[in-house]
C-alpha cells in the first residue's frame, strides 16, 4: 500500500513539476534560451506573495491575481532588454547572463530575507487536509488542487498556442524566425510575450509551492530548476503534455527512490534524468515537425 501511495503522490507532484517546467519549455522552445534563473523566479514570486499578504492582508488566493501579472510584465521587460541583448550576442553570453541573474537573485534574497525558510500560510483546511481512498491511501487536498491547476494551466496554454493569433505567432517564430519577420512579425515582441507567459506560469507555480512546502533563497536552484528541466527533457521538448508526462515520470521516480531509501528521493530523479539524456535526449514525446 505504501507503494500505491507513493506512486499517487509522485503522479500528483508531477503536476507541480509540469507547472514549473512549462515556462522553461516555452522559453527554450521558442527562443532557445535556457533560463538558468527560472527556478529563482518562482521563489521570487513566492516571496513577493508573502510580502503582499503581510503588508496588505489580502486573502491568500488574491496574491495570485496580484503577483502573477506583475511577474508576467517583469518577464516581458526582462526579455526585451537584458535577455534579448544577450541573445543578440551569443548563446554563451545568454547562459552566462541567466546564470548571473540566478546567482544575483539568490544572494539578494539571502541578503534581505536571510536563509530562513518561509511558507505561505493559508489557514485553510485545504492545505493541511487530506482525504482517504479505501482504508490506507491518503491524498493531500492541496496536491490534488495543484495538479488540477497544472492541468488547467496547460490546457489554457495549449489552447492559446493553437488557437490565438499570438499563439500562432509564437509557434511561427519558433519554427522560423526569419520567415516570421518576412510576414511582418517583430520577433522581439513575440519573444517578450513568450517570456511573459513563462514568467507568469512559473510565478503561479512558485506561489503554489510556497503553500505546499517551504521557500528558501536557494530553493530555486536546489529544487526547482533541475526538476523543471528534468520534466522538460524526459517528456520531450515541444510538447506541453510531454512536459506533464515528464513531470509525472520524475515525480514517480522520486517516490520510488524514496521508498527504497528515504534519502534517495532526489537522487532517483536525477538518475532517471541522466538516463534519458544519454539514451533518448529527445524525450518520450518527440515532435519531429520543428524545423
Amino acid at each position, binding site marked *: 500500500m505504501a507503494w500505491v501511495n507513493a506512486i499517487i503522490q509522485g503522479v500528483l507532484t508531477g503536476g507541480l513539476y509540469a507547472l514549473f517546467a512549462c515556462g522553461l519549455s516555452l522559453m527554450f522552445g521558442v527562443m532557445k534560451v535556457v533560463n538558468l534563473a527560472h527556478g529563482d523566479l518562482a521563489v521570487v514570486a513566492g516571496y513577493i506573495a508573502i510580502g503582499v499578504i503581510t503588508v496588505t492582508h489580502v486573502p491568500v488566493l488574491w496574491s495570485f491575481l496580484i503577483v502573477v501579472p506583475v511577474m508576467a510584465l517583469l518577464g516581458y521587460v526582462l526579455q526585451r532588454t537584458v535577455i534579448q541583448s544577450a541573445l543578440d550576442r551569443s548563446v554563451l553570453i545568454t547562459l552566462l547572463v541567466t546564470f548571473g541573474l540566478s546567482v544575483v537573485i539568490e544572494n539578494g534574497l539571502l541578503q534581505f530575507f536571510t536563509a530562513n525558510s518561509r511558507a505561505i500560510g493559508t489557514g485553510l483546511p485545504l492545505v493541511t487536509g487530506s482525504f482517504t481512498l479505501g482504508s490506507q491511501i491518503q491524498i493531500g487536498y492541496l496536491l490534488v488542487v495543484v495538479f488540477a491547476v497544472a492541468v488547467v494551466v496547460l490546457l489554457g496554454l495549449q489552447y492559446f498556442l493553437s488557437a490565438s493569433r499570438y499563439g*500562432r505567432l509564437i509557434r511561427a517564430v519558433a*519554427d*522560423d524566425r526569419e520567415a516570421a*519577420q518576412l*510576414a511582418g512579425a517583430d520577433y522581439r515582441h513575440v519573444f517578450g510575450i513568450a517570456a511573459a507567459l513563462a514568467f507568469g506560469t512559473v510565478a503561479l507555480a512558485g506561489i503554489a509551492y510556497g503553500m505546499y512546502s517551504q521557500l528558501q533563497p536557494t530553493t530555486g536552484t536546489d529544487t526547482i530548476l533541475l526538476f523543471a528541466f528534468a520534466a522538460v527533457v524526459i517528456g520531450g521538448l515541444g510538447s506541453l503534455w510531454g512536459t506533464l508526462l515528464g513531470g509525472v515520470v520524475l515525480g514517480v521516480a522520486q517516490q520510488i527512490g524514496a521508498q527504497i531509501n528515504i534519502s534517495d528521493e532526489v537522487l532517483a530523479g536525477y538518475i532517471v534524468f541522466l538516463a534519458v539524456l544519454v539514451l533518448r535526449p529527445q524525450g518520450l514525446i518527440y515532435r519531429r515537425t520543428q524545423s
Partner: protein
Amino acid sequence: MAARAGGRHHERADDAVTRPENGARPESGTPLLEVSGLVVHHGQLRALDGITLRVFPGEVYAIIGANGAGKSTLLRTIAGLHHPTKGSVRLDGQDVTRLRPERRARQGVVLVPEGRRLFGSLSVEENLQVGDSYARPGPWTIERVYQTFDWMRERRSQLTAQLSGGEQQTVAIGRALVANPRVLLLDELSLGLAPVVVQRIYGMLPQILATGLTVLLVEQDVSQALRVASHIHCLLEGRTTLESRPADVTAAQVEAAYFGLADAAPASRPGGESEP
C-alpha cells in the same frame, strides 16, 4: 510586342501569353521600388557591388545570374534581411534602407524566400493566417487564396511539412499574397521543383499581377525568366552585366552577360542601366 534589334530565338511559340503586355516604362514618375548604388558585404566578401535598379508598378522584373552572383542577396537586402554597406532602397520614393524587415513587410515589400521557408509545425491555414497577421488592406484574403488555388481548401488543416515541393511553394506565395504587398519578391521559385510544376506556378503570375501587384523575382532558369519578365537584370559576381527588356536582347547577349564573356551586352557597366 516591340520590334527586335536582331534575330531572337524563341523557346516556345506561346510564351507571349505569360509575359505582361506593358513593356514600356513611363518617362517620369516614381518607381515603386528603387535601389541605388547598393553595396552589400558578407563578412569580407563583397556580394553586391553598386547595384542600381528601378521597378515600376505592374512590372515583372527578373534578376538572373549564375550561382553566387548575388541575386538572393539582392532580394534579401531589399527585404531588409541584410544591411547594405552603401546605397539605398526606396519604396515609392520613401527611403526604407534602415527599416527592419518586419516593418518593410508591413509597408508592402514581401519576400517569398528561397526554399519556401514555411512554418513546418503549422498547418496550411495557419501559415496563411500568420501571413495575414500584419496584412495591409487589399484584395487578397485567405478566402481569395483558396479560390485561386482550390486544392488548398481541402488540405488546409494539413501540416505544411507534409506537402510536396510545388504545393509548399504555392502556400508560400499564398502566405505572401495575403499580406497584400505592393511589391512581391520571389526568390528562386523553381528551385527543386519539376518543370511542369514550375510552369504551373509561373502561369499564375498574370492573376497575381491583375490585382495590382508588382513582382520582382530571382530566377535560376533564364529561359523561364525571359518568358515571364517585362524586364531582366543580369548579375555576375555582384555587378550588373545586363539590364534590358527581353524583347530587346538576343540570346547570345544574355548568355554573354550571364557568363561574363568578352562580348557582353552593350553599355553594361557596373551600377548603370544599359540601353539596347
